[in-house]
């Protein structure tokens, strides 16, 4: 374990009605890195991500998180004890339509984390909200609007702003760009990278699009049927996959010309 480790997961398992969705998963996440989690649909990526943040309760395993007050074991905490830790770990969701309450204005959505954690007074909260809007490059006049008035990419920016307004360390992105158009995807990925640099974020980046993972992640875990079958530094692992399953995943990356060998994602080709 490095001394800049932020999160360690050991032997994490989760079963649904006896069927394993995540089975004995272990890994470390270092501060300020981006760890990718890839795997085909149903391989347990979402379940793993949600178990780590205790959105659902794991059946077994240890999730140790380095909070501001030192190491805590998340799996044993009661819902009440978890609440203060929510400031330090957040989630950016996949569906920019389903993850925003349609009955709240952008201001209410972004203010809620601050209200819940009793941060600042009214003016300070508004200032923080406006500051966050700048960070995610949304107009200030978005405040009074409802989510239905925004495009998918804009909504995802709202979701990102909500996740980051409490200034967390660990941010779990569960397929946070999969639902977006390719050009919008590139903008959001760009934004996530800028925010990581500016705010010193650590990302757990769940995705099934390997070209995105290759672009944004430092290290990657490959999941298959709830287990981690391979892990390593992205470029090495993608260049020399040891497992057949990884090779299979890699072969599924769409390429404009089937004869062209796989290359790292070219930033310009996706409009960055």
């Amino acid at each position, binding site marked *: 374990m490095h001394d800049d480790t932020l999160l360690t997961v050991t032997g994490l398992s989760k079963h649904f009605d006896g069927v394993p969705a995540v089975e004995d998963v272990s890994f470390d996440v270092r501060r300020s890195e981006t760890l990718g989690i890839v795997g085909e649909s149903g391989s347990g990526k979402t379940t793993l991500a949600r178990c780590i*943040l205790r*959105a659902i309760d794991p059946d077994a395993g240890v999730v140790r998180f380095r909070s501001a007050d030192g190491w805590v074991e998340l799996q044993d905490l009661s*819902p*009440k004890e*978890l*609440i*203060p830790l*929510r*400031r330090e770990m*957040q*989630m950016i*969701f*996949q*569906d920019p*339509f*389903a*993850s*925003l*309450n*349609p*009955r*709240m*204005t952008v201001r209410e959505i972004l203010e*809620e*984390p601050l209200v*819940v*954690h009793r941060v600042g007074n009214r003016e300070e909260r508004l200032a923080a909200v406006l500051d966050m809007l700048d960070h995610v490059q949304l107009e200030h006049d978005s405040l*009074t*609007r*409802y989510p*239905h*008035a925004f495009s998918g990419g804009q909504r995802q920016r709202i*979701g990102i702003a*909500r996740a980051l307004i*409490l200034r967390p360390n660990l941010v779990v992105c569960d397929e946070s760009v999969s639902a977006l158009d390719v050009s919008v995807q590139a903008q959001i990925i760009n934004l996530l990278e800028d925010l990581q640099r500016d705010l010193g974020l650590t990302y757990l980046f769940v995705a099934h699009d390997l070209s995105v993972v290759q672009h944004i992640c430092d290290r990657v875990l490959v999941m298959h049927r709830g287990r981690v079958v391979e892990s390593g530094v992205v470029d090495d692992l993608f260049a020399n996959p040891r497992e057949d399953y990884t090779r299979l995943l890699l072969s599924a990356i769409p390429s404009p010309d089937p004869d062209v060998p796989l290359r790292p994602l070219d930033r310009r080709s996706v409009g960055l």
Partner: protein
Amino acid sequence: MSEVALPSGAGVAAGVTDRETAAAISPRRLMWLRFRRHRLALASGAFLLVLYVLAAFCEFVAPYGTTTRNDDAINAPPMGVHFFDAEGRFHLRPFVYAYRMEVNPDTWMREYAEDTGTRHPIRFFARGEPYEMWNLFPMDRHLFTTDAGTYIHLFGTDPLGRDMFSRVLYGGRISLSIGIVGVVLTIVLGILLGGIAGYLGGLADRVVNKAIEVLQCLPSLPLWMALSAALPVHWSPLLVYFGITIILSLFGWTALARQVRGRFLALREEEFVMAARLIGADTPRVIRKHMLPSFSSHIIATATLAVPAMILGETALSFLGIGLRPPVVSWGVLMFQAQNPLVIELTPWQMFPGLFVVLTVMAFNLLGDGLRDAADPYSTGGMK
């Protein structure tokens, strides 16, 4: 899901074209804009509003009390309101004609016709029969009445010479309020039990579900009958009123509880609810801020659709003589008096309470349908 995304261009469809306005428009307002286009529902709502206001102020609106008898008008037919008299002269103040009673030589029945020689001018906001408003304030002004010694019976009179119009109004107060009080009880029971089942799941869910299934299997009318028959005879009219209301809502909550439970189950899985929990909101806040608001409009629609069942329940029980009893006046009690087919044939105006029951039930159904369509644009028969 239906709660989450509004149909694209819903604002435009509702007549909002300006981009800025559409952006800041609240979902509640969007619902109102959609509802406004259901003309029939809107009209029903207005009709019910008028009816409820009239019933709330029935002492003032009705020219007479429920027991005031007019010995000159037994089983008399409804009077017509006139502006022109028999000679064709116009009168600014509307008037009714006095009754002219004859005994039919064949049937020996009293029959009434208009006595065009005697006009009873209608006075508005004039002093008339004294009464106590809401049993509190002694008053004697009525919305309309006629001079002392004369009379007005817009809906005719009953066999004891009591004014049907006044009795229908007083009856409406009881019948209409039973619908509302019952539905409030239903909503409380439905949200509480449905919410517990849907949010907690597990054993609580199974128990509530079983209770709902059992209650929904039972035929409600016989059970209502059995339970109301079991109400002690010596109970005061007020106690009986609440007893009947509770009996009616005891069976009414199941449909709402089912809905609430379903909504809770669905919403619990919604990403924005999980997002709220992940930012650190506690359960009461999640329920209050993120779950209840997104189906409160459905609760209102379902509740509106549940009112007619309550009103019909009261009417049915009273009609069968096991609900409310005289001297309490409700639409059901009034219809109880008109059970005899001969009564209906000879004095059809005694069916006025029935007409009001039908109109009210229809209006509530139309209003509820409109609300439901506005709340949920995906349901069948909703927005195109």
